[in-house]
């Protein structure tokens, strides 16, 4: 009962946030000089052509009217038609989003598989050589921009070693993409690099914090062997906050994809967004931002729910 109201309340909050996001993005795009007509029709277009384009797209009406029209269409599932790609935005997103999800999910999974054991090892061997080396490596990864790290990967493993292709899978469907796993390796690694640093630091500090808790001492005093203390108590208690953080990382994940997709020419939502931004393709931009906003809000909602499943104390305070 209480958890139903909790979910309900959070959903209402989520919808409100998404609404405001669309308002803000719409206003920002509207304030940009030039407008989409110039971008789409090219520099040679006449004033008459531009006016005709604006009239046909409803762009000559006041901003409030345009926004209300946009919102009404959005609610009925119509996100408009792309200016440049001449296809409904919904259709574009339906094709591109799953591919981006594949890339981000794989990158996050790879990052977790590497970062959690690494962070744990660093905590258990705190201030020893392993910890120092891992700290330096992860900080370097964290400080390296994604496009730069991606280029290094391409040069090293595609140009010099020729192990993996430098271009991501170009397939239309998720199935096509997954059919070329070797082409996914470099994009996934590029996406995972920064996350490894974030996740391993997080795991390390959460584990250290838990290791200094009194209940670890209690477990020692009852004769629990150290490895079992790590497994039975510390690991689980340290991962709880990490799961929550994962949900909050969704905007970061999308931000990373933007660069990775552009770099490896991966036909996902990031590349769509990139190209739309270059050509002032309003409907596509707003559609992408909407999706990212929903994903962000849902991510934090899921994070909270996951935390309440794992941590009984969170469950009881609602």
């Amino acid at each position, binding site marked *: 009962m209480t958890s139903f109201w909790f979910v309900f309340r959070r959903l209402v909050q989520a919808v409100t946030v998404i609404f405001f996001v669309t308002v803000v993005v719409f206003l920002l795009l509207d304030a940009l000089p030039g407008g989409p007509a110039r971008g789409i029709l090219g520099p040679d277009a006449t004033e008459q052509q531009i006016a005709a384009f604006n009239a046909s797209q409803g762009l000559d009406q006041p901003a409030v009217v345009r926004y209300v029209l946009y919102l009404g269409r959005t609610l009925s599932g119509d996100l408009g038609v792309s200016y440049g790609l001449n296809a409904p935005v919904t259709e574009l997103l339906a094709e591109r989003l799953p591919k981006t999800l594949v890339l981000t999910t794989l990158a996050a999974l790879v990052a977790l598989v590497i970062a959690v054991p690494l962070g744990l090892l660093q905590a258990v061997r705190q201030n020893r050589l392993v910890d120092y080396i891992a700290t330096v490596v992860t900080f370097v990864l964290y400080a390296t921009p994604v496009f730069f790290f991606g280029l290094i990967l391409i040069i090293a493993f595609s140009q010099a070693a020729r192990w993996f292709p430098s271009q991501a899978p170009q397939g239309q469907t998720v199935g096509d993409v997954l059919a070329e796993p070797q082409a996914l390796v470099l994009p996934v690694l590029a996406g995972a690099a920064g996350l490894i640093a974030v996740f391993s630091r997080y795991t390390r500090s959460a584990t250290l914090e838990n290791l200094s808790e009194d209940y670890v001492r209690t477990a020692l005093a*009852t004769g629990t062997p150290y490895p079992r203390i790590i497994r039975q*108590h510390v690991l689980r208690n340290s991962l709880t906050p990490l799961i929550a953080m994962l949900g909050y990382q969704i905007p970061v994940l999308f931000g990373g994809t933007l660069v990775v997709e552009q770099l490896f020419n991966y036909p996902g939502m990031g590349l769509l967004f990139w190209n739309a931004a270059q050509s002032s393709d309003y409907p596509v931009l707003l559609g992408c931002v909407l999706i990212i906003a929903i994903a962000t809000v849902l991510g934090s909602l899921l994070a909270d729910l996951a935390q309440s499943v794992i941590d009984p104390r969170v469950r009881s305070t609602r």
Partner: protein
Amino acid sequence: MTSTNPALDIVDLSVTFATETGPVDAVREVSLRIEPGEIVALVGESGSGKSTVAFAAMRLLSGNATATGRIEYDGIDILAPGTVTRDFRGRTAAMVFQEPATALNPLMRVGDQVAAAVRNHQPVSRAEAARQAVQLLARVGIPEPEKRARSFPFQLSGGQRQRVVIALAIANSPKVLIADEPTTALDVTVQAEILDLLRRLVAETAMAVLLVTHNMGVVADLADRVAVMRHGRIVELGATADVLLAPEAEYTRQLLAAVPRLQLEHRGGPDAARPDAEPVLSLTDVSVLYGRGASAVHALKSVSFDLRPGETLGVVGESGSGKSTAARVALGLITPAAGTVRLFGQDMGRLGTRARRRIQGELGVVLQDPVASLDPRLTVGECIAEPMRVHRGKVDDPGRRVRELLDAVQLPASVLGRSPYELSGGQRQRVSIARALTLDPRLVIADEPTSALDVSVQASVLAVLRELQDDFGFACLFVSHDLAVIQQIARRVVILLSGVVEEAGPVGETLITPHSAYTRQLLDAVPSPDPVQQRHRRELRLSRVGGMQ
């Protein structure tokens, strides 16, 4: 007594901690022997090294500690290399900790935690371990053990959590139980129950117990023998009755003299209140709610009391009774949901922010934790002068005022430029008191001002407070859980239970011949540092409890 090995034999134990400022000797040549079935208390003030002995005996000292000497369990020295086997912790020796709130894994059901402890030493199936866990929970007196086994620690009360910690400790029938301040974090009625439990377990199992405590009442209640520690050494060791009734060491005498004792008989003497004077503080039907809707909790329910000029009113209760909430209401930190708060005759609910602030300048505050309530970035002088900066122009010569106050709380002028961190706990609390008095308040609100202090320090802080009250004439709202302290310092007392005034009246009558059953129970639960008296009190209490059931 047979001539077999003692359960625990500590010989010439010394422990040194390597710190940034050089080695610190925490324990120096301590020798102590405990026979099976015997309870030996290690008593002392903070920094005496008593807990260090306990942790050394469990081999749970931190990495920067070096222990020398011998700690023998049944003839085997655990300080010698290779002697600490997997069977040692949990099976040979087990430990009960001070803080039950943090001693358990918050994300694991208590039954699972006890079952895991069972499986540490017994090759039984999960189902069998779970069954044993329920039995253990029943044995330590947890009601509905099958149901409670599925609870998480936060769903249990403090006393129940400590029972679970004890269940963990006895899960594998250890020969020696080391209890480090096992009742310090608990309310006095819960403390009595936990002490009863420990006594019963020792009688049933013939465990040897090393009981570390600062509470002489706990020693008198439970221990067969007692060792008094100071500066890492044992200064006196003997049978509990001998040490507590006829102490030989000067330090033991001082320590016992400082322990506030509950007066059990009427001392007489006038209760010189001034019933005609207008109260400085008056709460009328004050209610405070925490939370909203169905889950709201009444922290205070229709609480009324008056405090008259120059008087000290004690507010007593166990944790969750609302006593600190009452102090916060008086301070204006909480606006009550219902009722009126009158401070110096003015209705606080009707005053504007500015008028309230001016009135609050007539208040002084002393809080429980002197470490947390003094800003570490200020010097002692700045801390004391701070209220004069907030309420500008109330004092003509701030510098002179600070020196006067320092003198009044009996601190040397040399501490003025130091950081509060460089002072001892008692000195810090005196700085807090000086700061409370800076603006010459008409009312001082003290929330557990001596609870974080050692008894000898507590005695001196209470003496300073009383002396200042005579000189300055302020009224005092004194919140405490300690009935003996209230008896020493307060003239009237209000006893709170779950946010309701259970009983109120002059200290002399209320705390000696109470009308309410709860007050009686509270008084009965306070252990007396006199072992003979305490045995009598315990029997009386148990017969009353038995009669109630």
